[in-house]
């Protein structure tokens, strides 16, 4: 019993130090729960899946510069589908090639949906769309650690219209970098 107490105390102390460390490093961030992220990770871990991969949070993601724009092009999807079209693969081939040359750049794939489906279901769909691009880039040889995904579902349409033209623009993967 006493030993457990000692172990517990040690764990608490380590967690506290990690929390303090994390807070000093990222003092700019306003989120009070930040320390808990570091301290809690081990406890949350279900132990089966690649948690070491980058979360989409952290430093700011940027829109591609004009020079990068030719490689960071949105790819589009069919309604309620996650399959990559031949055009989408073509765009990803260019992006993959560029990423293999520019190895210090990390990329964020945002998955988006049109307004027609249900908001919650679209969040799951958007995550899958982002992963479809990620998996393709990984197959091209890009390190998975460099690619984060973020689903916005239908929360951030690029075109607020209610026409097929607008919907088609909104069913997309959008690419950012840092």
């Amino acid at each position, binding site marked *: 019993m006493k030993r457990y107490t000692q172990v517990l105390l040690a764990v608490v102390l380590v967690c506290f130090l990690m929390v303090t460390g994390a807070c000093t490093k990222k003092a700019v961030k306003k989120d009070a729960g930040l320390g808990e992220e570091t301290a809690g990770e081990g406890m949350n871990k279900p132990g089966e899946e690649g948690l070491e991969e980058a979360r989409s949070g952290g430093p700011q993601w940027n829109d591609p510069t004009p020079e990068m724009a030719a490689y960071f092009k949105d790819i589009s999807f069919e309604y309620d589908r996650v399959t990559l079209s031949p055009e989408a693969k073509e765009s990803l081939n260019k992006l993959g090639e560029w990423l293999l040359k520019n190895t210090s750049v990390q990329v964020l794939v945002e998955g988006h949906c049109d307004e027609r*489906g249900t908001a919650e279901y679209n969040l799951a769909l958007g995550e899958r769309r*982002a992963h479809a691009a990620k998996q393709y880039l990984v197959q091209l040889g890009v390190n998975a650690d460099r690619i984060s995904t973020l689903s916005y579902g239908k929360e951030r349409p690029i075109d607020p219209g209610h026409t097929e033209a607008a919907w088609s623009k909104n069913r997309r993967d959008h690419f950012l970098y840092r």
Partner: protein
Amino acid sequence: MKRSALICILFAAIMLITLPGSALAKVYLDILSPFATRLPIAVPAFKNTGSQPDTENIAAKMATVIRQDLDLSGFFRVLDASAVSSDPASSGTTLDTIKWDSWTIIGAEALVTGGISVNGSELVAELRLFDAVQRQSIVGKRYFGRAEDARLIAHKFSNEIFKSLAGEQSVFETRIAFEKRSQGTKEISIMDFDGAHAETITEMNSICLSPAWSPDGKKIAFTSYTDGNPDLYIKDLASGKTERVSHKKGINITPAWSPDGRRIALTLSLKNGNSEIYALDVATRDLERLTDDPANDVSPTWSPAGDAIAFVSSRSGSPQIFMLELAGKKVRRITFEGSYNTSPDWSPKGNKIVYAGQQGGTFNIFVINTDGTLFQQLTHNQGRNEDPAWSPDGRYITFSSNRSGKNEIYIMRSDGTGQKKISGGAGEKNNPAWSPFLK
């Protein structure tokens, strides 16, 4: 049976005294065959029993609130009392002073009277319910509060009326949480079940989604992008403290509290963007995986016994509602009508699931028994209707609809009648969640 006259019960800041009168054991409302027959009830304008002249406004507002509550409930036919009692100051409010004939002539079987006095900011309300046929008192209460509590006191007496006549409490003191969009962000708001007292409870300056009440009504779980990822947070309503409880890479969305409040079912996408449903232990943060399928699984809702969840899965191609028995991990599909069915909510009585189904380019609200029988459509030809959720007594359903031109929150009876917009003001509103009984 005579009730003790001087029992003071403290409800928040409002003091309450039960007035002398005979509480009858008679059951006036048959709650087992809901909305079948309606009790004719009159709620004339309440009387200003004090000296402050502006009390009339408050008295009128309180009577209006009670009329709206009773009408909405679906168990009453609220009679037009204005013909009988154009001057509330002259009409009686107590057993001895009420002019009974004028009420029986319009067919009133029940009568609500009120005497309101305001002194400075203090309000005293004497509210009474009578059997207008037997000419007997059923229940009477004296409330002491502040003038701004007038609506709340009126709702409390509506609940008292319902309890006296039906033997069960109703939703008149419950609240509804929802997403409200403004200037590129979405925050979580709460309002009374009739749309009053709307307030924004989050300040995440971000997209906040899917509010879910804890079973004790003290906390709300929701998803927010405030840290750059859709993570799960819990807001404690009393302390105002917000805590992040799940922040896995990928989505941390669609929370649903287990009936005992110890776990939250949620959707995570831990592997290859494939969303699965997990149960998060709120205290220990341990995760248990509940679904396992290469298709998307999302939007869980617990059975009232906590032994099963219903959820959305695209495992049959398009999204449909499925049920998972937690003990044997047996999964069965519930919806077969239509090709896109989402947003399930399990009724508190346990045998029905309400959901949104796509129908000819729009969405409507449907109810189905958990065994897949008795499929019923509740909304028709009135815009896009989504995000249905049960009231805690299972008699009403809240949902969002764009029928007015933009997304607002509505309520209706569980048979689809009495559809009513309750939210207003700026901003699109979505995803309402009805609170449990708040005490």
